[in-house]
């Protein structure tokens, strides 16, 4: 079964499949797929970039939602705690956040293991560190978007939920959340495009994303301009594709607002 799926997936591969861009236009050149060129390596980099971005969003959104809830709670201490979080992670450069989390996790884990008399070297998975760092940054920005969406929902909606006898959790889930998604979607769309660009930083800690793969190709083949141009084009293509998808999502979220 999985063989069929992988064959289907391989056939639809937009870069190196039988009808892929690299295989159609790039054969016998530097971006040919297979051993002759760098096409398949770059295609793998695209896959890593997309996977990283897609894996980051749910984690970042979940943390961001919790932070937004904390930032609008009645309790002062909770608001302060959320404020500190967003101030720190919106103020630090993404690159520095990535290094702090990457090396911090390594050093912290080593210290914990030393406690248990383990003296080996610890290597943190670059994908995991990148995902955590990007999720932390994404959550601090998305919490602001969600917070302003929360504020746009009139108080009467909560009171109506209470009047219907819904519990607070059900009010949130059935009344507030559907409206929240619709209001917050444009802001979150922007954050997705920013996240897609921020994934390029993980190349610095050695994850094989678009920038790293094209960089290796550039160094080996001495055709730096060509390969970095390809990298820019790939990011551009990802942005164009996702903006089409997000436009569809926005239309979907707004389907109740159509004029009758």
């Amino acid at each position, binding site marked *: 079964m999985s063989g069929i799926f992988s064959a289907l997936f391989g056939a639809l591969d937009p870069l190196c499949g039988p009808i892929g861009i690299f295989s159609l236009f790039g054969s016998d050149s530097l971006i040919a797929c297979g051993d002759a060129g760098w096409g398949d390596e770059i295609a793998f980099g695209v896959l890593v970039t997309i996977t990283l971005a897609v894996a980051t969003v749910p984690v970042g959104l979940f943390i961001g939602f919790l932070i937004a809830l904390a930032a609008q709670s009645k*309790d002062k201490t909770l608001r302060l*705690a959320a404020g500190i979080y967003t101030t720190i992670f919106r103020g630090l*450069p993404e690159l520095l956040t990535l290094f702090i989390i990457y090396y911090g996790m390594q050093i912290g884990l080593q210290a914990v293991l030393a406690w248990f008399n383990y003296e080996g070297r610890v290597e943190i998975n670059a994908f995991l560190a990148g995902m955590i760092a990007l999720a932390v940054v994404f959550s601090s920005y998305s919490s602001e978007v969600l917070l302003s969406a929360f504020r746009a929902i009139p108080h009467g909606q909560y009171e109506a939920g209470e009047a219907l006898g819904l519990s607070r959790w059900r009010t949130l889930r059935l009344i507030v959340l559907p409206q929240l998604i619709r209001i917050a979607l444009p802001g979150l769309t922007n954050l997705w495009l920013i996240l897609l660009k921020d994934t390029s930083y993980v190349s610095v800690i050695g994850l094989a994303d678009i920038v790293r793969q094209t960089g290796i190709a550039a160094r080996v083949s001495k055709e730096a*301009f060509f390969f970095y141009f390809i990298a820019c084009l790939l990011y551009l293509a990802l942005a164009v594709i996702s903006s089409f998808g997000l436009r569809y999502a926005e239309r979907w979220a707004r389907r109740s607002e159509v004029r009758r």
Partner: protein
Amino acid sequence: MSFVTELIPPRPAPAAAKQGLTGARIAGISVLALWALLAAGLVLTVINGWNQDKFLRYGPRYLHGLWTTISLVGISVVLGAALSVPIAFARMSKNRVAGAIAYAYVYVFRSTPLLAQLFLIYYGLGSFKPQLESVGLWWFFRDAWYCGLLSFVLNTAAYQAEILRGAIESVPRGQHEGAAALGISKTIAFRKIILPQALIVALRPYGNEIILMIKGSAVVAIVTVYDLMGETRYAFSRTFDYQTYLWAAIFYLAIVEVLRHVWAFLEARLTRHLKR
């Protein structure tokens, strides 16, 4: 028949019901405790790992890196602002070709990562050494600092053009018409009526853009410019001391927070005539 014989004396309002330990409060206090713990850990690492020798060796380098970051961002924001004006006007012009070119420029530079743009300029254009030498531009593309500056200027110009365009278009049409009705020429109307209103709208996005540039400028460290991040990486590669990154974080947070507060003050000051 019964009736009230004595009035109830006036009483103060009942005391507010005391909120005990709610879940929110417990969560808030525990998260705050976590932050306090982290802060204490930070202070402890700094005190325990204090080393006069390292401080004297790397302290001045950090300050130098800070200056590199600030000057790089300052120059690129100013040059980018200059470059953004023609782009914004091309984007707003009725000329289809100019509008399309400006739109393409903005779209491309806003949807590719700064890191890839920097690599394209530094490594990519750097591979055309003979051609650049013959034109006499090699001194520019040889230096990582200039390449960083060029990529920042191109990048921030795209963002600032959008800010400027949005701000100018946010001024209501009635303002143009009012100026025309008063017989004020278009250039004077733009300079004295449209632009002041537009720049107030643009103030906050400009502040955000500067903060984004300061954060984004850390990428030049990867192409061997010794800005704040570059000095941090240098110090870390020499000492393997985790503190180096913490110091950088403190510096960056300080810059961003100072800028944020200065901008909030500026905005409050410049919009005080709009407050009712």
